[in-house]
């Protein structure tokens, strides 16, 4: 009798996440203040990508607590903070829809 094998597909680890931020990438001047301010440490600066003005900008990883610190310390009004009604588990790693490229948004608005 052969024992069926358990599937070995790895299950991605998840992170409890209580909120999210939208990041106005084009407004950012790359000052890094949000990086140190972020309490759960889920913001990281890009190292190889730049906005249209040539600045590095922050990216969000799963685990945001909606604590607002990033928005409070940001000199350039880059962050919009949302709090989830109930925490969710998000896969570890970048939150893909956090970055807000205003030019793209504007084009979308013009189309609609």
């Amino acid at each position, binding site marked *: 009798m052969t024992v069926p094998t358990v599937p070995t597909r790895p299950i991605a680890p998840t992170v409890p996440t209580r*909120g*999210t931020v*939208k990041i*106005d990438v084009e*407004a950012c*001047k*790359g*000052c*890094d*203040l949000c*990086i*140190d*301010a972020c*309490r759960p440490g889920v913001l990281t600066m890009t190292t190889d990508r730049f906005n249209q003005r040539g*600045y590095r900008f922050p990216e969000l990883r799963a685990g945001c607590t*909606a*604590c*607002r*610190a990033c*928005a*409070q*310390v*940001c*000199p*350039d*009004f*880059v*962050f*919009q*903070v*949302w*709090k*989830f*009604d*109930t925490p*969710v588990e998000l896969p570890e790693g970048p939150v893909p829809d956090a970055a807000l490229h205003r030019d793209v948004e504007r084009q979308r608005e013009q189309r609609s």
Partner: protein
Amino acid sequence: MSSQLVVEFKPKLLQSSEHELCPGCGHSVAFRVVLDVVEELDLKPVLLAGHGCYTQLMVQSDLDSLQCLHGRAPAAATGVKRMLPTTPVITLQGDGDMVTEGLHEILHAAARGEQFTALLFNNGVFGDTGGHLTATTVVGQRTKTSLEGRDPALHGYPLNIGQLLAQVEGAAYVARGAVNSAGMIARTQRMVRRALELQLEGAGFTFVEILTMCPTGWFVPTSEGPEYLEDAMITTFGIGELKAPPG
């Protein structure tokens, strides 16, 4: 999954969030603190600003605004408030504007107990002109007019304007905050709120100094601004309420 918006990109009372302040500048951080309080208290104030980097924030604001001669905002605010005693009046000055050029006006306005709220964005340097020594530049700080650092033998000592104002009978509230961390920002926001509440109560002259980062003027990387503020400015001037009515 439903969610609530807890912080909008820009405060409602900014018509535009675009500005030409340097990366890592603390002025717009401090201005957000002020606008958030004005919005919380649902005020319709007149804002008077001096000459400095922060002047462009006055322009962006959705507040009735008067741009004043360098150092003279407290005198102009006296004229505004005396004519509009029920309108909240806020002045916004930098350290060069208030403490260097305008020491006379701020002290006399305080002594008269003028019923407006004076805000000082203190970064210890003339930012707008490109980084020069002011009356609050701390000992040892390098500026373009103190290249080897502020030397007491040569340039004298920085003025502690909060301490000066706290001695003045007409001043009802004197506090110093900073914007070098989220916690400090929250604390500073409470100070600004208290000052404006006291103005509404007619308590007298109210004053909040906010220490802000100027990494460009300080010749430090933007990410080190908050730490430099802590080490250089908070160490020199301190943080907290220097004078407040009981309760």
